[in-house]
C-alpha cells in the first residue's frame, strides 16, 4: 500500500534575537515566515529593563541625571536636557543664557553623533561594511569634544537643574568651530557614499512605508513622522530652550519608507550643524552658567509638569510629579524608541526576511530607551 504523502507549504517561525547581530542591542522578535516572506512579527522587549522610573522615585534630583544618561545612550545630553527642563519648569527657574547656548550646542552635536551612528548601523544592516567606518571617524571628533567638556565620552552627567555642572573649558567655542568644517565635509562624504547607491536604493525604497496618518496614529515621532510627511519637529512646533532664535530647516519626506527616514536623518545632521554655528555666534563669552539661588538639593514645589524635547529618535517626554520633597514623586518617561518599536509589525507587513533588519535599522531604536 502506498501512502499518499502530500507536501504542504508550512510557515516556520524564526526567532531573531536577543543575541542577533542586527537587533541593535537586546531586542527579540519572532517572525513567522512563509519562505522568504514575513507573515507575522511579534516583538519582545524588556531585556534591558532597569526600572528607571521606579529608581527615580528613590533618588535625589541631582542623582537622577545620571540615570537619564543611561536611557538613550546615544543621545545622553538630550535626555539630561529634558529632565532638567522638566524640573526647571516646575520650579520656574530662569537658566542663564550662556548655559542655554552651551546646552543647545552640545545637544545638537549629540544629535549629529547619534545620526552618524544610525547611518553606519543602517549601512551594516543593508550589508555595506564601509559606511560604519566613515561614520565612526566623524563621530569620534564629536566624542572628543564631549570628553573635553564633560570628562566623559558617553555618560556625561553635565547638565544640572538650573544650568551646567561647571563652565565649559577655555577655548570651547574655537574647538567646536574648528570641528564644524570637517564634520560638514564628512557628512557629505557619507551622503555620497551610500545615499544614491543602486543597491541601497533597491533595499530601502518603498520598504516599510507608512502613511502620515498612520504614523500619527502609531504615535511615531521625530524623523519617522517627518519622513512620512508631517513637519513635526518640537524645536519648531513648540520651541523650548533657545530654539526659537535659530534659523534652520526641517527635512520632510513623502513616502515614509526606509530611504526617506534615512535621507531625513542625513539632512538633519546638516541642519544641526547650522544650529551649532548660529549658537556659537550668539553665545555670550562670559556669564554665569548656573541660575542664581538654586540649592544643591533642589526641591521643586508640589505640582506636575510634562516636558518634551526633540531627541534624535523623536519626542522624548518627562512627566514629573513632585510632592515638594527632595525626591520626585513620580517620573514617567515617554521614550521615542518605545513608540517606534510597537509600529514594527505594521511596518513589516508584506516584507521579506531581509527587509526586517533594514526596517529595524531605519527605526533607529536604542534598547536602553525602549526598555528603560
Amino acid at each position: 500500500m502506498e501512502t499518499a504523502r502530500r507536501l504542504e507549504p508550512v510557515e516556520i517561525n524564526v526567532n531573531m534575537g536577543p543575541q542577533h547581530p542586527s537587533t541593535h542591542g537586546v531586542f527579540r522578535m519572532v517572525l513567522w515566515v512563509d519562505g522568504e516572506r514575513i507573515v507575522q512579527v511579534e516583538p519582545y522587549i524588556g531585556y534591558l529593563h532597569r526600572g528607571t522610573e521606579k529608581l527615580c522615585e528613590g533618588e535625589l534630583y541631582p542623582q537622577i541625571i545620571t540615570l537619564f544618561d543611561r536611557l538613550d545612550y546615544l543621545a545622553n545630553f538630550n535626555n539630561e536636557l529634558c529632565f532638567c527642563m522638566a524640573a526647571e519648569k516646575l520650579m520656574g527657574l530662569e537658566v542663564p543664557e550662556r548655559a542655554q547656548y552651551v546646552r543647545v550646542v552640545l545637544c545638537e552635536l549629540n544629535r549629529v553623533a547619534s545620526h552618524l551612528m544610525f547611518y553606519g548601523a543602517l549601512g551594516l544592516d543593508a550589508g555595506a561594511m564601509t559606511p560604519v567606518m566613515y561614520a565612526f571617524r566623524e563621530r569620534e571628533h564629536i566624542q572628543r569634544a564631549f570628553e573635553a567638556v564633560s570628562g566623559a565620552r558617553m555618560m556625561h552627567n553635565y547638565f544640572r537643574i538650573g544650568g551646567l555642572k561647571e563652565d565649559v573649558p577655555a577655548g570651547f567655542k574655537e574647538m567646536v568651530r574648528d570641528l564644524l568644517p570637517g564634520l560638514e565635509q564628512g557628512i557629505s562624504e557619507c551622503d555620497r557614499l551610500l545615499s544614491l547607491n543602486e543597491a541601497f536604493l533597491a533595499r530601502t525604497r518603498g520598504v516599510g512605508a507608512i502613511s502620515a496618518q498612520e504614523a500619527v496614529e502609531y504615535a511615531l515621532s521625530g524623523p519617522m513622522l517627518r519622513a512620512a510627511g508631517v513637519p513635526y519637529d518640537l524645536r519648531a512646533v513648540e520651541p523650548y530652550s533657545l530654539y526659537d532664535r535659530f534659523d534652520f530647516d526641517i527635512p520632510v519626506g513623502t513616502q515614509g519608507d526606509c530611504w526617506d527616514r534615512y535621507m531625513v536623518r542625513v539632512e538633519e545632521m546638516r541642519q544641526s550643524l547650522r544650529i551649532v554655528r548660529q549658537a556659537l555666534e550668539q553665545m555670550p563669552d562670559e556669564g554665569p552658567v548656573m541660575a542664581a539661588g538654586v540649592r544643591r538639593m533642589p526641591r521643586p514645589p508640589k505640582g506636575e509638569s510634562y516636558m518634551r524635547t526633540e531627541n534624535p529618535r523623536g519626542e522624548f517626554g518627562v512627566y514629573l510629579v513632585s510632592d515638594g520633597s527632595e525626591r520626585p514623586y513620580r517620573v514617567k518617561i515617554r521614550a521615542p524608541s518605545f513608540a517606534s518599536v510597537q509600529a514594527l509589525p505594521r511596518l513589516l507587513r508584506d516584507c521579506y526576511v531581509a527587509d526586517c533588519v533594514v526596517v529595524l535599522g531605519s527605526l533607529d531604536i536604542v534598547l536602553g530607551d525602549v526598555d528603560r
Partner: protein
Amino acid sequence: MAAALVISALGLLGLVAFITALVAGGLAALAAVGGLLAMFVFLAAVVLSLVWLERKYLGRLQMRMGPMRVGPFGLLQPVADAAKLVLKEDVTPAWVDRWLFWTAPLLLFLPSYLLWVAVPFGPGLVLRDLDLGLLYIVALSVVGIVGILMAGWGSANKYGMLGSLRSAAQLVSYEVPVIIVALTVAMMAGSLNLSQIVEAQRPVPYAVVQPLALFLFLLAGLAEVGRTPFDIYHAESEVMGGPYVEYSGAHWAVFYLAEYVNTFLVAVMVTLLFLGGWKGPGLPPVLWFLLKAYLVVGFIFWFRGTFPRLRIDQLMALGWKALVPLSFVNLVLTSIYLFYGWPWWGMSLISLAILAALGYGIHRQAAARKPAITLVPAVEVRSAR
C-alpha cells in the same frame, strides 16, 4: 626445452614489463598525487594571501590600517588565524544530523579543489590538459551546492536552512548565465580546452571583443561564489552566516577555504576566458597570469567595500530578467558575428553599444530618483502657531 625457454623468456619479459608498468604507473600515480598535493599547497598559499589582501584592502578602503600586529605589515595574520581555527574546539550541536553535518564541508571543498586539475597556469603548466576543461570546471563547480544544502539542513538551524535554500536558488539560477557566456567564449575559440581558448585570444583578448560577456560573467560569477553584493545566503546581518552558522573550528575553516578558493576560481576563469590568460609582454607567463587574476580579485574586494547586499527577490529578478536574457542575446549576436566572419572590432562595437545602452538606462533611472526630501523652514512652522 625451447618451448620452456620461450615461455620463461616471455614470462620474464612479462614480469619485467609488469614491473616496469607498475613502476611507471606508480610513478604516474605518484606524480598525480604529487601534483594534487602541490596544487593544494599552492591553493592554501593563495587563500592565505587572499585573506591578507582582503583585510588590508578593505582596511585601506575604510581608512584603517588592516592587520598590523602579526609579522611585518600583518603578513602572518592569516597564518595565525588558520592556526587558531584549527586549534579551536569543534562544537557539534545536539540536534544536528551528524552524517550530513560532517560530510558537508568535504562535499563543498572537494569539487572546488578538484576542478583545479584542469586549470592551466601557463603554457603547459597544467595537471591535466583536458579537452573538455571548460565543461569539467563548469560541471564541478555546481556540485558544491549540495554541500551547502547539506550543511544548512544538517545543522538543524532555521537560519542555516533559510541560508541554504537561498544559496540553492541563487546558485542554480546564476549557473545559467555563466554557462551561456562560457559557451559564447567556447564558440569564439572553437574549443573547450582552456589552453586553446587562451591561445585563440589573438590579436586581442576577448575582454575587448566581448565586453558585455565579461560584464555578465563577472556579475554572475560574483553571485556564484556569494560575494557582496550577492552574499545573500550567508548574510551575517540577516541569517548570521547561513549554512555555516553552527560550524566552528576546523570545519568552519574548510568552508572558509572553499569560499576563497571559489573566489579565486572566478578570477582565474575571467583571466583565462577574457583577459588572455598568461599572455603579456616582458614578464614570465605565470607571473602575468597571477597578476591578472589578482587584479580581478582586487576588483571583487572593491565591490565588497562599496555595495550593500541585494535582497533575495531582487537577486533572482536580476538573474532571470536581466542576466539570462542578456547572455542569450549575446550568444545570438556572437553566432551571427561568427557566421558572417566580421572583423573582431565589429563585435566589440556591438557589445560596447549594448553595454553603453545599459549603463545609460541605469543612469537615467538613477537620475530620475531625486531625493524626495523637502526642506520646510523652521520659521514657517513656528509662525504657523
